[in-house]
């Protein structure tokens, strides 16, 4: 053991050469995030007759390492809306704190909470757009689910560039490729979505989560799912993918036990 505490936890000079502390200096330009570090994968959401279903798995990856396997990526806001986060987890946690303070501030008003999912989406989109305009982006793609000012189902996306859009079904990341086609088959337009039952919507989202687990290498079989209606939010954070069938894997060369 080295007797100088200053050297503890540092690479040994005799093995690794002198320690390069140049990056510890804090003169020079401000450093902004140039890429995400710990990341969450897809978020899925689908509108139905009287609300929105939203889901995301509970994994936070560090590159290809499945680093944190119990990270909840759906967040309630004011018991009226749910935000689903894809992308950088530390930026998600920053936005979580920001929304907590917004929640408290809003609750002080004499009329109580007046922010609906649409207002919340506008707020988050403006935060993201401002940050990208300062070249200091929050590396996320968000889905905001809830009800709009008229009490109709609301679902919209906002990303690190401040781009926003709304659709009967939305999926971020890998889900945009794998899940969105499945969800669009169930709800091709607003009219069809407004006739979907809760059961149909939940079933479609769960089926999509399963397909994502089969094919997205940065996913896990534990997930969170929330249903937002005017009755409130039903958020379940410890769901496990059920009825998996890996029979298809046997048919794929190089995937199973065959040699050639």
């Amino acid at each position, binding site marked *: 053991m080295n007797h100088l505490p200053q050297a503890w936890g540092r*690479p040994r000079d005799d093995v*690794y050469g002198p*320690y*390069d502390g*140049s*990056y510890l*200096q804090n*003169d*020079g*330009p401000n450093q*902004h*995030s*140039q*890429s*995400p*570090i710990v*990341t969450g994968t897809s978020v899925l959401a689908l509108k139905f007759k009287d609300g929105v279903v939203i889901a995301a798995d509970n994994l936070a990856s*560090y*590159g*290809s*390492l499945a680093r944190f396997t119990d990270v909840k990526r759906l967040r309630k806001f004011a018991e009226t809306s749910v935000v689903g986060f894809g992308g950088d987890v530390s930026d998600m946690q920053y936005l979580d704190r920001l929304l907590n303070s917004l929640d408290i501030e809003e609750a002080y008003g004499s009329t109580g909470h007046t922010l609906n999912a649409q207002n919340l989406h506008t707020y988050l989109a403006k935060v993201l*757009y401002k940050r*990208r*305009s300062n*070249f200091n*982006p929050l590396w996320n793609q968000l889905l905001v689910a809830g009800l709009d000012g008229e009490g109709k189902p609301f679902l919209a*996306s906002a990303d690190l*560039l*401040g*781009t*926003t*859009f*709304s*659709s009967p079904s*939305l999926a971020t990341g890998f889900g*945009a*490729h794998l899940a*969105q086609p499945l969800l669009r088959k169930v709800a091709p*337009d*607003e009219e069809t979505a407004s006739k979907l039952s809760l059961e149909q919507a939940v079933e479609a989202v769960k089926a999509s989560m399963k397909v994502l687990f089969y094919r997205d290498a940065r996913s896990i079989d534990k997930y969170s799912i929330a249903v937002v209606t005017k009755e409130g939010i039903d958020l379940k954070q410890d769901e496990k993918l059920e009825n998996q069938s890996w029979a298809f894997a046997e048919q794929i060369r190089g995937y199973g036990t065959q040699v050639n």
Partner: protein
Amino acid sequence: MTMFSQNPLMNGPNYSFSQTPTMASGANKEHSFYPYTDNGGSTLAISGNDFMIMAGDTRSTSGYNINTRYSPKVFKIGGTTSSQDDATLVLSVVGFAADGHALKEKLDAIVKMYRYQHGKPMSVKACAQRLSTILYGKRFFPYYVTAILGGLDEDGKGAVYSYDPVGSYEREQCRAAGAAASLIMPFLDNQVNFKNQYIPGSGEGHALVERAKDPLPLVVVEALVKDAFDSAVERHIEVGDGLSMMLITKNGIEEKFLPLKKD
């Protein structure tokens, strides 16, 4: 490439020592964050004698993905209510949708303030100059959009003003912008400005007489807009889903929506 380099230093978790920064401190690091994206889509505006039509498809894309099939890029500007019922101007923005949205919100706020302070709606001419100033104000970090402003001028004639992302602008008879501009504009040159149209048998070579440049009636213009978009949808993957049209006459703004092919 970027999808495999999500970690700060090289690809994935690794020993830290081979990766200690070797760059001299103080050297400028190139930013790898690019603040723009292209959301595709196309817009089109044509003016007539006493009307103008502004149209845009409603598809929003990112790469080969369709974000949504309904994201309009044509907006009413400067009404006194949130429904914009009494607006007199229309703006279309195509390019980077987030900048387009920010630009629209900004112009709308300015035109509304003008209306409150002066007790009358802003003229297209004044609004056109103001929009140019807004765009040029971000000359060194531009709004990455092609804007078109439409309305009726002081004489009640249809007015179309088209812009580049940094505020160069010009009043025109018609303009196509966005992803399929290169497909639509030549069609408009021929069908609206009658380019390369000559009166048959009027002469040989330079003696040929050009077709007279008479303004088109509304029904013809509306048919041209539909044809232009139906054709663009066939040949451009970023255009489709729906067509949102605004028709401005002395009676106000009429909104129309038509489906386009969703493939």
